C-alpha cells in the first residue's frame, strides 16, 4: 500500500512539475530568445518482489530545453548575411539621392555653367554676361564643395556607426564571458539552467547580427567565439573576452582596421565582412571610397581643363587670362622633433599631379636637398638643390627660416580636392573670352587670301641637334674652367639657350690662328661674327637639322648695334668691359640722415701678357694689320714692329694711347716678374738685360739680392722689392713701364737663374681704363688672333637671348679654349605671350617674317603654294595662295573684345572626352552616381534572397524551440488529467488503508 501511495505521491508531484513547466512556456510566449522547455519523466527503479518486478512509478528526470545546435548556427549565419546588406543599401541610396537629384546634384550646375558660357560667347563684350558667367562659375564651385561635404558627412556618420558597433561587440562579448563564467560551475549542458543557456544564445544572435562569428561549444555549454570565420580572432574564450578597437584612415575611407586589445598589446584583428559592421565597412570600401576618389578626380580634371583653356586666352583688358578655378587645400604641417621650426608654406600649382596623400620631408645637409617620403607608398624622392623651395607632386613647397640636418616635417593634406574647389577670379573683366593672337590680312593686299591661326603647335624646329649647351659649361669665366673645343665650319659648337641673360662666351686662341666665332639664329640670321662668303654661308647652315633648307641667309643684322640690332638686343663680338654705376650712401649735407649718390666706377681691365714677337726681317711688319681692330667705334691704326725690334707692352700702350682722344681708353703697361721665395736659387747668378747682378758675388739672402738688383737700376731700368709674402718682385723702373725684361744666367749650362725663373725675355701686360666702356670689335680684316696680340681673349657678349636658341660656331682650323658666364634661363614661363609679327610676301614663293615690336626681319623663307607657315608655336593656314605684296599681321588681339574664340573652346569642353577613360565631364559624373546606384540595386537583390533564407532558418528554429499556444493548451489538459488521475491513486490507496484499518 505504501508503494501505491508513494507512486501516487510521486506521480502528482511529477505532473505538478510538468504543469509548472507548461505554464512557464505559456508565460514566456513573447520572451525573446526563449526556448521551449519540456519536462521529461523517467520510470522509477522497479522493486523486486520474489521473481516479479513491480514498478515504482515515475519521477521527473529533468527539464530539457528544445534546442538544435545546427539550426541555431544556421540562423545566426543567415542573420549575419542579411544584416550585411542593409547599411550598403541605406547609405548608397542616400548618396544616389543626393548626387542624382536635380537640385543638389552636379548636373544642373554644370549645365548652367556651360549655358552662361554659351551666352557669353554670343556677346563677349557685355559686362552683364561676364558677371553672370562668374556667378554661375561660382555656383559650380560651391556645388562641388557641397557634394564633397555631403560625402564627408556620410564618411563621418559611418565612422561613428562603426565605432558604435564595435562598442556593442565589446559589451556583448563581456556579457558572454560573464555567462560563460556562470556556466562553468556545472559539467554538462543538461544540468545547466535553461534560462542561462537562452541568454547565451540570445547574446550570440545579437553578436552575429553585428558580425559573423564562429562559435565552438564545450560540453558544459561554454562557448568560445571567433570573429568572422573559424580562423578569425578569438574574442571570447571562456571567462576572458578580448576588446576590439577600430582605426580609420582619413584619406582612404575604405581602409578600416580592426584592432584587438587596443589598449594592451594591440594586434590586428581579422577582417570583418559580414553583419552590420561588415556591411558598413563594405559600403565604405566599395561605394564611398571609390565615389569620393572619382569625384575628386573629376574636380581636379575640371579645374585643369578649364584653366588650360582660360589661361591661353585674353581677358577684356587684353592681358593673358589667369586661372579661373583653383583648389584650396589645407595642409597640416607638424614637426614634433624640430626645435626651431622654419615656416613652411605649401601651394597647389599643378592640380593634375597633386596626389592627396601625406608625406614627410627631411633636410639633408650634406647633399643640400630635401628627402621626401610619401606616407602611403613609402616612395622616396629627393628635391632639387636648395632649402628655399621645391616642387613635389604638383605642390610648390617653400620654407623660410633656418633648416638643420635631419629636421623632419610631416605634411598631411586635410581637405579633399573637391572640398577646396573655388573660383579664383572675381573681376568680370578678367574673364578670358578672346583668343591670344589675331591674324589680319592687310587692307592694302591686292590678293584676297584669308589666314587662320592654330596655337600651341609643336615647333617644327625647336632646338639645334649639335652643340653643347653653355649652361653645362659651368658658370665661370676664368681660363681655368675653359673647355677645349675644336673648330667646325658645319656644326655649331655651342648653343645659347633661350631665356639666358648676360651671356659672355670667351675664347682663347693660339697665336696666328684663323679661328673665329659666328653666331646665328636657326632661321639663318647671322647676328655676330665676320662677313662670310656664299660658300661658307651654305656650309654653316648645312650641318644641323635646325637650319631649314627653305630659309635664306641674312647678314642684315651682323654686328649691328642699338635699334638696328637683331631684336634690339645688346650684343658685342670682340671684347667688352663696361663701367659700373654704384650707389653710395654718404652723410647728407644738411647733417641729418644719409643721401644716396651714384658713383661711377671706370671700366678697368688687366690683360694677359701681350704677344712677344721678334721682327727678324729687314722691313717693318704689322703685328696688327690695318682695318683689324675697332675700339669704341674708332678704327685703330695698324700696330707695327720695326725691323729687328721686339714687341713690348710699352710700345702697345703707347700705340693705344695715341687714340685716347677719340676712344676714351687709356692704357698703361707694366712688366712684372714674380720670383717666389722658395724658388730663389742663391747659388746661381742672374743677368738682367745683359747686366750681371751682384758684380760676381752671390747675395746672401733675398733682401741682399733685391738690393743688388736695385744697384743696377740705372743700367737695367729694372727695380725690385720683396713683397709681403716674401716673394721677390722684379718690375720696370719709373719711366720704363712696360719694357721687356730679359733674364739670363752667366752660367750657360743652367736653364734658370738666381731668381729661379727661366732664362728668357719677359713681356708685360696692359692695363686699360675708360670712364664709359672698353669695347673692341673687329674691322673688315680683324680676327680673334689680333686681340690675342694685346693679351685679350675674344668674347661674345649677349644681353638676352630672348625667345630663341642661338647657335655659336667656331670656324677655322684648330681648337680654342672656351669659358662661359651667364644668368641661367628661368624655369619656363608657360604664360608668356607670343610676340606680334608680320608676314610679307616678297613674291609668291618667298616671304619674310618681321618682329613688329623691334622691326627686325627674323626670317626669310621660301614658300611653296598651299603650305602652312609655321613660326614658333603658331601655324598659319591660308585659304587661297597669297601673291606678291600681300602682308599679314599677327598681333596680340588688343581691342578685340568681341572675339569669343576662347569662350567657344570653353563651351566645347562639355563634349570633350577629358577623363582618363574617355568620358566627358557630365558622363563621368553620371557614371559615379550610377556605379553607386548599381551597388545599391545589387545589394537589394541580395537582400531579398537572403531574407528568404533567413526566414526559413527562423522558421526552422521556431519549429524546434518555439512555443505554440495550442500545443501548450493540449499539454495543459493532458497533465491536468494525469494529475487528477494521480490524485485518484492517492485516494484509492487511502481507501485501501481504511479497509485494512476497518478490520476488528
Amino acid at each position, binding site marked *: 500500500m505504501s508503494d501505491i501511495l508513494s507512486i501516487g505521491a510521486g506521480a502528482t508531484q511529477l505532473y505538478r512539475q510538468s504543469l509548472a513547466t507548461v505554464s512557464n512556456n505559456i508565460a514566456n510566449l513573447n520572451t525573446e530568445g526563449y526556448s521551449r522547455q519540456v519536462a521529461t519523466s523517467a520510470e522509477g527503479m522497479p522493486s523486486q518482489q520474489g521473481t516479479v518486478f513491480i514498478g515504482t512509478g515515475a519521477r521527473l528526470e529533468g527539464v530539457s530545453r528544445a534546442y538544435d545546435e545546427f539550426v541555431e548556427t544556421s540562423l545566426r549565419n543567415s542573420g549575419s548575411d542579411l544584416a550585411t546588406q542593409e547599411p550598403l543599401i541605406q547609405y548608397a541610396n542616400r548618396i544616389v*539621392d543626393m548626387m542624382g537629384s536635380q537640385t543638389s546634384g552636379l548636373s544642373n550646375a554644370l549645365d548652367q555653367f556651360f549655358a552662361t558660357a554659351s551666352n557669353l560667347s554670343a556677346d563677349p563684350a557685355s559686362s552683364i554676361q561676364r558677371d553672370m558667367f562668374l556667378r554661375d562659375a561660382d555656383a559650380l564651385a560651391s556645388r562641388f564643395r557641397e557634394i564633397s561635404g555631403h560625402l564627408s558627412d556620410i564618411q563621418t556618420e559611418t565612422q561613428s556607426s562603426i565605432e558604435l558597433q564595435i562598442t556593442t561587440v565589446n559589451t556583448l562579448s563581456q556579457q558572454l564571458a560573464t555567462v560563460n563564467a556562470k556556466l562553468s560551475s556545472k559539467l554538462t549542458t543538461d544540468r545547466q539552467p535553461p534560462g542561462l543557456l537562452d541568454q547565451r544564445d540570445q547574446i550570440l544572435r545579437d553578436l552575429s547580427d553585428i558580425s559573423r562569428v564562429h562559435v565552438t561549444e564545450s560540453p558544459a555549454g561554454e562557448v568560445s567565439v571567433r570573429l568572422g570565420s573559424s580562423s578569425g580572432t578569438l574574442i571570447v574564450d571562456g571567462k576572458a573576452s578580448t576588446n576590439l578597437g577600430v582605426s580609420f584612415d582619413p584619406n582612404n575611407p575604405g581602409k578600416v582596421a580592426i584592432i584587438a586589445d587596443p589598449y594592451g598589446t594591440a594586434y590586428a584583428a581579422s577582417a570583418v565582412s559580414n553583419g552590420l559592421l561588415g556591411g558598413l565597412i563594405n559600403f565604405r570600401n566599395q561605394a564611398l571610397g571609390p565615389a569620393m576618389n572619382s569625384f575628386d578626380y573629376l574636380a581636379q580634371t575640371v579645374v585643369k581643363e578649364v584653366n588650360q583653356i582660360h589661361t591661353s586666352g585674353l581677358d577684356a583688358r587684353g592681358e593673358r587670362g589667369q586661372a579661373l578655378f583653383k583648389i584650396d587645400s589645407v595642409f597640416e604641417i607638424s614637426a614634433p622633433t624640430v626645435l626651431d621650426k622654419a615656416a613652411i608654406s605649401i601651394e597647389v600649382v599643378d592640380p593634375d599631379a597633386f596626389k592627396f596623400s601625406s608625406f614627410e620631408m627631411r633636410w639633408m645637409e650634406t647633399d643640400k636637398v630635401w628627402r621626401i617620403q610619401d606616407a602611403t607608398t613609402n616612395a622616396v624622392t629627393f628635391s632639387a638643390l636648395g632649402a628655399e623651395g621645391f616642387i613635389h607632386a604638383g605642390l610648390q613647397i617653400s620654407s623660410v627660416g633656418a633648416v638643420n640636418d635631419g629636421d623632419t616635417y610631416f605634411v598631411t593634406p586635410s581637405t579633399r580636392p573637391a572640398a577646396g574647389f573655388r573660383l579664383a577670379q572675381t573681376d568680370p573683366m578678367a574673364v578670358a573670352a578672346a583668343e591670344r593672337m589675331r591674324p589680319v590680312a592687310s587692307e592694302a593686299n591686292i590678293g584676297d587670301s584669308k589666314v587662320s591661326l592654330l596655337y600651341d603647335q609643336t615647333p617644327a624646329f625647336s632646338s639645334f641637334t649639335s652643340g653643347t649647351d653653355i649652361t653645362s659649361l659651368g658658370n665661370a669665366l676664368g681660363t681655368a674652367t675653359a673647355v677645349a673645343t675644336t673648330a667646325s665650319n658645319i656644326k655649331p659648337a655651342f648653343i645659347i639657350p633661350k631665356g639666358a641673360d648676360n651671356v659672355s662666351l670667351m675664347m682663347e686662341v693660339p697665336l696666328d690662328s684663323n679661328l673665329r666665332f659666328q653666331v646665328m639664329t636657326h632661321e639663318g640670321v647671322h647676328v655676330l661674327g665676320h662677313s662670310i662668303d656664299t660658300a661658307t654661308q651654305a656650309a654653316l647652315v648645312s650641318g644641323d637639322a635646325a637650319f631649314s633648307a627653305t630659309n635664306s641667309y641674312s647678314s642684315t643684322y651682323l654686328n649691328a648695334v642699338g635699334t638696328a640690332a637683331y631684336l634690339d638686343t645688346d650684343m658685342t663680338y670682340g671684347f667688352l668691359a663696361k663701367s659700373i654705376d654704384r650707389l653710395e650712401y654718404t652723410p647728407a649735407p644738411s647733417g641729418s640722415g644719409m643721401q644716396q649718390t651714384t658713383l661711377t666706377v671706370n671700366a678697368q681691365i688687366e690683360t694677359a701678357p701681350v704677344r712677344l714677337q721678334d721682327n727678324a726681317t729687314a722691313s717693318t711688319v704689322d703685328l696688327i694689320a690695318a682695318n683689324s681692330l675697332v675700339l669704341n667705334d674708332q678704327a685703330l691704326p695698324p700696330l707695327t714692329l720695326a725691323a729687328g725690334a721686339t714687341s713690348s707692352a710699352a710700345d702697345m700702350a703707347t700705340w693705344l694711347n695715341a687714340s685716347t682722344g677719340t676712344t676714351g681708353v687709356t692704357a698703361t703697361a707694366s712688366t712684372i716678374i714674380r720670383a717666389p721665395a722658395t724658388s730663389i736659387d742663391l747659388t746661381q747668378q742672374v743677368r738682367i738685360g745683359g747686366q750681371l747682378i751682384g758684380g760676381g758675388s752671390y747675395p746672401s739672402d733675398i733682401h741682399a739680392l733685391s738690393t743688388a738688383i736695385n744697384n743696377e737700376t740705372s743700367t737695367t731700368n729694372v727695380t725690385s722689392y720683396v713683397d709681403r709674402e716674401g716673394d721677390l718682385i722684379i718690375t720696370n723702373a719709373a719711366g720704363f713701364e712696360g719694357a721687356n725684361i730679359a733674364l739670363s744666367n752667366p752660367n750657360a749650362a743652367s736653364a734658370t737663374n738666381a731668381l729661379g725663373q727661366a732664362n728668357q725675355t719677359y713681356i708685360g701686360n696692359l692695363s686699360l681704363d675708360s670712364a664709359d666702356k672698353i669695347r673692341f670689335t673687329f674691322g673688315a680684316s680683324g680676327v680673334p688672333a689680333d686681340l690675342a696680340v694685346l693679351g685679350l681673349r675674344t668674347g661674345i657678349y649677349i644681353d638676352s637671348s630672348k625667345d630663341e636658341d642661338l647657335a655659336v660656331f667656331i670656324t677655322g682650323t684648330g681648337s680654342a679654349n672656351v669659358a662661359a658666364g651667364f644668368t641661367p634661363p628661368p624655369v619656363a614661363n608657360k604664360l608668356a605671350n607670343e610676340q606680334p609679327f608680320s608676314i610679307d610676301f616678297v613674291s609668291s614663293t618667298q616671304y619674310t617674317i618681321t618682329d613688329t615690336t623691334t622691326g627686325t626681319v627674323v626670317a626669310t623663307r621660301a614658300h611653296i603654294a598651299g603650305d602652312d607657315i609655321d613660326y614658333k608655336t603658331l601655324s598659319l593656314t591660308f585659304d587661297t595662295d597669297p601673291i606678291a605684296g600681300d602682308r599679314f599681321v599677327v598681333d596680340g588681339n588688343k581691342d578685340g573684345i568681341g572675339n569669343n574664340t576662347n569662350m567657344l573652346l570653353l563651351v566645347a569642353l562639355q563634349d570633350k572626352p577629358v577623363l582618363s577613360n574617355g568620358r566627358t565631364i557630365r558622363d563621368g559624373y553620371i557614371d559615379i552616381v550610377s556605379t553607386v546606384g548599381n551597388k545599391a540595386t545589387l545589394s537589394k537583390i541580395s537582400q531579398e534572397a537572403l531574407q528568404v533564407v533567413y526566414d526559413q532558418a527562423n522558421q526552422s528554429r521556431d519549429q524546434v524551440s518555439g512555443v505554440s499556444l495550442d500545443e501548450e493548451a493540449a499539454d495543459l489538459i493532458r497533465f491536468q488529467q494525469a494529475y487528477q488521475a494521480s490524485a485518484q491513486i492517492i485516494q484509492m490507496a487511502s481507501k485501501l488503508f481504511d479497509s485494512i484499518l476497518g478490520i476488528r
Partner: protein
Amino acid sequence: MKISTGQVFERAVTQMTTQQAKLAQMQTQLASGKQIVQPSDDPDKAAIIQRLNTAYERQEVYETSLDSVNNRLVAEESALMGTDNILQRLRELAVRASSDTLTAPDRKIIAIEVSTLKDAVVALANTQDITGNYVFSGSMTKTVPFAIDGAGATLYKGDDRYVEVDVSEQLRLSMNRPGNEVFASVVRQEAGVDPRRVSFFSVIDDFVTALNNNQTAGVQRSLAEVSEMSENLSGSLADVGSRMLVVDSQREMLSDAKLRYKTLLSGVEDLDYAKAVTALSAEMLSLEAAQSSFAKISQLSLFNYM
C-alpha cells in the same frame, strides 16, 4: 510542421507592413505623377532622365544664341538695305554726272548731294545693335568701325575677324560680317601705276573731288567703281539674307528637337496612370485580404474551448 504562436503573428505583421510600404510608395508616385520619386528608386532610369534633361537644356541654350545672332542680323540687314539704296542713288548721280550736257556748276551741285549721301553711309556703317556693339567692326565691337582722320579720309578701324556662335551641336554660325568686307575696297588699275586697293569711302571721296574739279575721266572711273561697290554690297545682302534663313530653319529644328526630348523624357519619367491605378487597386485588395484573414485566424485558439 509546427508553427509557434510568435511566428504566426510575426509573419502576418511582416507581410502587412511590406504591403503598406508598397502602397505608400504607389501613393507617392500617383501624387507626384512621376515613376521615380527618388533617384535611388531606379538609378539607371535616373541617369537617363538626367541625360535627357541636359540635352533639352542645351536646345534652349542654342535658342538663346539664335536670338542673339538674329538681333545682329536684323541690325546688319537694315544697315545694308539703307546702304544699298544710297549706292543706287549714287550710281544714278554718277550716270547723270558723266553726261556731256552737264556743266561744272551742275556737277558741283551733284557733289554736295554725294557728300551728304556719304555721311549717311558712314552713319549706317557705324550702326550698333541693341546690345551696344558695333555691327561692322569685326571682333572689335566697342570700337567705331569707320572714323575720319585728320586728313579727312575715312579709315577702317576694325578688324576682319568673324565672330561665330554655336547654334547646334554641329552648326556654328557667324554673327557678323567685317566692315572691310561689306564696305569692300576695290582694285584700281591705272596706267603706268601698279594696281592698288582703294577703300570704299575713298572711292566716294574721289567721286566728290572729280565732281568738284569737273574731271570727266574721274567721274567715269567713279561710275565704274560705284557699280562694283554696289555689286559687292548685293553680295553682302545676300549673305545676310541667307544667314537669316539659316537662323529660321535652325529655330524650327530646335523646337522639333525640344519636342522630341520632352516626349522621351515624359516616356521615361512620367507615370502611366492607368497602370499605376490598377496596381494600386490590386495591392489594396491583397492588403485587405491579409488583414481580414489575419483577424480571423488569430482568433482561433484551443483556450477558447477550455
